């Protein structure tokens, strides 16, 4: 009653739809493109209003935003470093600069954290680079390794004027 060709076409459509449905079921919940994000927020927890000029020993209040989309639980270690114009930093090389502070956060997949940062720079400094580097704790090696994410803030640190 129905042509064999029509039957074959219907069969093919059903098979393709079936394979697609099973593939969807099998891959659901899998993270296709894992990533971690690191952001620097101003004193109002917003992108902006960053300090540019600060006094030596003045508390700089900022916020760090860390976001985990790696598809697994992560132990992040954020190092705050004080660099300058010549400090080399990129995705593969971390800054060779003194560490001002360390922040640690454990995040399951899909979670984020906003960490308050209070830092003081003890001495006057022109074109100081406040660098925040993302490192991760590797449970297999039991050590932290640079994760290639970093943010920075350029600052001029002046000495307080004596009246």
């Amino acid at each position, binding site marked *: *009653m*129905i042509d064999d060709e029509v*039957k074959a076409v*219907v*069969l093919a459509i*059903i*098979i393709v739809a*079936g394979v697609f*449905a*099973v593939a969807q*079921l*099998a891959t659901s919940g899998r993270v296709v493109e894992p990533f971690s994000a690191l952001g620097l927020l101003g004193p109002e927890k917003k992108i902006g209003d960053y300090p540019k000029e600060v006094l030596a020993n003045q508390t700089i209040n900022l916020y760090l935003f860390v976001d985990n989309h790696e598809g*697994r*639980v992560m*132990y992040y270690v954020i190092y705050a470093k004080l660099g300058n114009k010549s400090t080399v930093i990129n995705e593969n090389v971390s800054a060779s600069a003194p560490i001002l502070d360390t922040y*640690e*956060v*454990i*995040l*399951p*997949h*899909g*979670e984020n*954290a906003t960490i308050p940062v209070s830092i003081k720079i003890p001495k006057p400094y022109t074109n100081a680079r406040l660098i925040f580097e993302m490192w991760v*704790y590797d*449970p*297999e090696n*039991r050590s932290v390794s640079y994760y290639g994410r970093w943010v920075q803030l350029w600052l001029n640190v002046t000495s307080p004027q004596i009246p």
Partner: protein
Amino acid sequence: MRRLLSYLLLLALISALIESSICHGASIEDSIKNVYSRLAEAEKAGADVHDAALKLEKALELARQARENPENGSLLLAEAEKLVNEVNSSIPLLIETGQKRIFWRNVEIASAASLIAVSVFFTYYYGPRIFWGTWLRIRSRWIVEVSGRSGREAGKRDRR
């Protein structure tokens, strides 16, 4: 002399207390790292570690607060340690639940695949029969009239 000895003793006691507090702080961080490693392993084994990881994060925060406020340090560290122990003891159960979840998920995928295969078979063999059966049932009340030469002369060809 006795007074000097008592001062020395007191000094030794205070330094021991400070040292134990510092060591305690260091040990809580080590145990957080150890439990995190176990948690990461558990996650690989299929466990849902979301809530446990948040508890561990809370413990990490408490440890940091204890470092910053040494006057409440012991209290905060005790709370952090409690959370770490809680997470540590929950790991075997999390793994067990995760493995069960993986098993049932595989069962679900296998059943879906089988259901699709069976439905393909049924559609191929019984589809046309069902289709024509339905078609006939829908049109069973149609009245078919013999028309004249043109459709206009005969009026309506069929009526429902």
